[in-house]
């Protein structure tokens, strides 16, 4: 099972480190990362494998959202199926 972590907000030092740190802590394998800076806005999307998570998926998602709030970032953790079904035929 794979999920997408989308991080949006003002660019600061250590965003990738922080998010991937939480993923590593709970055994979510990062499979792909893309990031762009649009004007002043930092947008990163990360595809992670969550089959081996050591905690419940919902708790994991909450933890990332909370970490995002602390850094002034919006973090969304969503199952990849939503994007596949909306954007692929």
């Amino acid at each position, binding site marked *: 099972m794979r999920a997408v972590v*989308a991080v949006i907000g003002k660019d600061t030092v250590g965003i990738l480190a922080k998010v991937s740190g939480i993923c590593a802590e709970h055994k979510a394998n990062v499979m792909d990362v893309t990031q*762009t800076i649009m004007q002043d806005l930092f947008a990163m999307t990360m595809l992670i494998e969550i089959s081996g998570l050591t905690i419940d998926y919902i708790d994991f998602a909450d933890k990332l959202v909370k970490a995002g709030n602390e850094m002034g970032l919006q973090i969304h953790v969503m*199952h990849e199926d939503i994007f596949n079904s909306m954007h692929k035929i």
Partner: protein
Amino acid sequence: MLNTGDILETIKMIQEENLDIRTITMGISLLDCIDGDANRACGKVYEKMMRKAENLVKTGEEIEKQYGIPIINKRISVTPIAMVSAASGDPVKYAKTLQKVAEGTGVNYIGGYSALVHKGFSAGDKELIESIPEALAETANVCSSVNIGSTKAGINMDAVALMGNIIRQASEKTKDDHCFGAAKIVVFCNAPEDNPFMAGAFHGVGEYDCEINVGVSGPGVVRAALAKHPDANISEIADVIKKTAFKITRMGQLVGTEASKRLGVPFGIVDLSLAPTPAVGDSVAHILEEIGLESCGAHGTTACLAMLNDAVKKGGVMASSHVGGLSGAFIPVSEDAGMIDAVNRGSLSLEKLEAMTAVCSVGLDMIVIPGDTPADTISAIIADEAAIGMVNSKTTAVRVIPAIGMKEGETLEFGGLFGSGPVMPVSKFSSSKFISRGGRIPAPLQSLKN
């Protein structure tokens, strides 16, 4: 890897354009609960509904978290209660049982305090219809609907006459609660049996024993998509709407199949509707204005709505394995900020809304009318609306709220998803003689169509 643009687009739709799943509605058949003793029947109803819907709210919340999509309502629809209560009588007891189930399961509405009388009344129908005002006044989360006409049966004018009275009584009985009783009754022509939306949801007898139906929303997303094409012609606009409706509906299909899998009940349909809310940016009227009308209700509104409604269906049909319910654009007044503004600025009248219902998915919805409107005028409004549905082989409905003690120019506040409704004038001329005749309007010809 997924496309970053697609990911950000989805997030923007949810965050800024009010994209959501409007409702997951579990349809439950109560035919196996029928009993000659009302207490015993209600016991069976309670037991079956609690068993089937025990995890509905929890499952909805889990799916919401997993996919990051808001699922606004979790609801239940049941077999029209008139069929269930006919054997025992005392339909209000069933309404109170449904209320207890709503509280026990945490769903926000239960639909199906209903009767299907499009040709005539059978045992239990009249008793149920006459009990609607009391049932709705004594329960908070139960919704009622009555089907008074169909393309195949014509229009039951005795039922039309009765419903004008019932709507008035429901409003009077709840006059201290914003006349909310009347907001929980829908009078249908050609009612769909798998509609997940309230207040008109009920579980038809041809459906599964238990099933999941999903209603999607997304007027804000359509409007935002159109705003990116200010100079497109109408063919291009229709294509943009189709593509957007496709995406919205795919999300509904995903959530519906996931919910049905988790709950272990069959997946029924996706109702691909544009259902507005009073929230800023979630309005069907604003879509019509984005297409190029100064204000909703201006000449051209019916044409824009016809194109919108058709494009939503064309885009949605391909995105879902089973489409049903009402499917199309809803045009309620009180639940749509753009419609409220259009009424207040004098561009949208009841007559124009009636014309719009000939090409949209439902009918005259959430319209507040003066408190002194006679019952037979309400009946005549119902008859007109049902005639449009009957002749055009489509669903039409009436949900009007006589605002007791209020007159034109005042506003009835409901709050929440129901919004607020400016009191709209109705014709001062009487339809009394027509309504008092009773009888049936014969079913219309289905050929020689001009």
